[in-house]
């Protein structure tokens, strides 16, 4: 019986992801184009915020993916620790820069939206602050991968860092809320909550989120392939030097 673990074989993984990638990438592109065009040109303007409400089509999906990328890295790290499949560790490594970019997109679009609406680029609001801390976690994780020569050691160390980091990321999230208790009005941000948003905005947003998820999966698959090939190349080069 075919099990999921067969895909832990790098060769099988590359073959399968090669077959899947064009469809996945195409579907991501379709979703993004449809969602963004629909969102930007075919939705009414919000009666209070005008045009600027439309940034949610970039802001919400990227914020959503920034958090989920870390969760995916956590799961991949756990699989590496427990079952020691190299593809899993490499997938975690491949996801980190994508997640970091998503965090930056979310922070940047938030700042661009905040300037006209809140009258400021940045406030030390719980959501903003916890995203900044998440970004720092991504930076530390990427830097640790880059700093260690030996691949297996790097995979082990970053996996432990990811576990500890997840606990502390969660802790910071709640610590930050506590710290700013009652300082900030919540009403402005409740637009982010999907139940508060009208259907006209909701459906293109769903398409955009689907597009971002597909894009993330496609990018991670592609980057994992690259990591596997780069590692093979290093192994070949090492063999050449020896022989």
């Amino acid at each position: 019986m075919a099990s999921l673990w067969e895909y832990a074989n790098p060769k099988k993984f590359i073959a399968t992801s090669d077959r899947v990638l064009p469809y996945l990438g195409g579907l991501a592109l379709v979703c993004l184009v449809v969602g963004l065009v629909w969102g930007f040109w075919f939705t009414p303007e919000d009666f209070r915020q005008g045009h600027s409400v439309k940034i949610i089509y970039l802001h919400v999906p990227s914020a959503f993916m920034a958090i989920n990328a870390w969760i995916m890295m956590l799961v991949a790290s756990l699989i590496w620790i427990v079952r020691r499949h190299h593809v899993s560790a490499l997938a975690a490594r491949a996801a980190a820069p994508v997640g970091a970019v998503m965090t930056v997109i979310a922070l940047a679009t938030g700042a661009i939206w905040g300037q006209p609406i809140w009258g400021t680029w940045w406030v030390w609001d719980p959501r903003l602050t916890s995203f900044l801390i998440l970004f720092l976690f991504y930076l530390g994780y990427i830097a640790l991968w880059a700093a260690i020569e030996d691949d297996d050691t790097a995979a082990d160390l970053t996996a432990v860092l990811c576990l500890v980091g997840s606990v502390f990321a969660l802790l910071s999230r709640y610590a930050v809320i506590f710290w700013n208790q009652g300082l900030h009005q919540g009403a402005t941000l409740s637009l982010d909550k999907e139940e508060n948003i009208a259907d006209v905005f909701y459906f293109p947003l769903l398409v955009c989120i689907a597009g971002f998820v597909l894009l993330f999966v496609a990018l991670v698959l592609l980057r994992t392939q690259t990591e596997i090939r780069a590692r093979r190349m290093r192994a070949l080069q090492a063999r050449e030097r020896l022989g």
Partner: protein
Amino acid sequence: MIALLTRDLRLALRTGGGFGLGLAFFLIVVVMVPFAVGPRADLLSSIASGVLWIGALLACLLSLDRIFALDWEDGSLDLLATAPLPLEGLVSVKAFAHWLTTGLPLVAAAPVLAVMLNLPPQGFFPLILSLLLGTPALSVIGTFGAALTVGIKRGGLLLSLLVLPLYVPTLIFGAEAARRGAEGLSITTPLAFLAGITCGTIALLPFASAAVLRINLR
């Protein structure tokens, strides 16, 4: 364990730097702040607790890479790892020694420096209490960071990048408790959270540090 503790303490005392450097750095940070923000007493007293917490955190960060680096370089870390003491115990002792040599002097120096920053008198006790509760967590988290980066040459910058986000919750609750104390509000909740973080890190992080150290010594 006690032999290891006394050895670490003696090393910190005699090699210099370890003991005094953190304190001197703490002093410098606190002295520099009035130059930067201007010597207005009302302004200083409102930011005093936060400045003292930041100063303590940075001073703690400064000495982190000394926890394992020296033992790693001269090979005694390998010997310690093969000793009958479990690695988790070794890591805890190291963290405790780090706290005794940096955390505790910082707590002791904080009231003196608080006077220089015009901290209101009712804020002294909460400040000392919050530092006393919070600095062990800083040492334990820092030991984890030091264990992570022990094999890396010139890992100091990486160490601070890794450790600083982990310090965020401790800093928030610690500074919050000190600030509320200075303003005469109730400090029970942030102190309880702070104590929770400290107990949690002391209970769990030595296992992560030991695991990481094992990987690095492989």
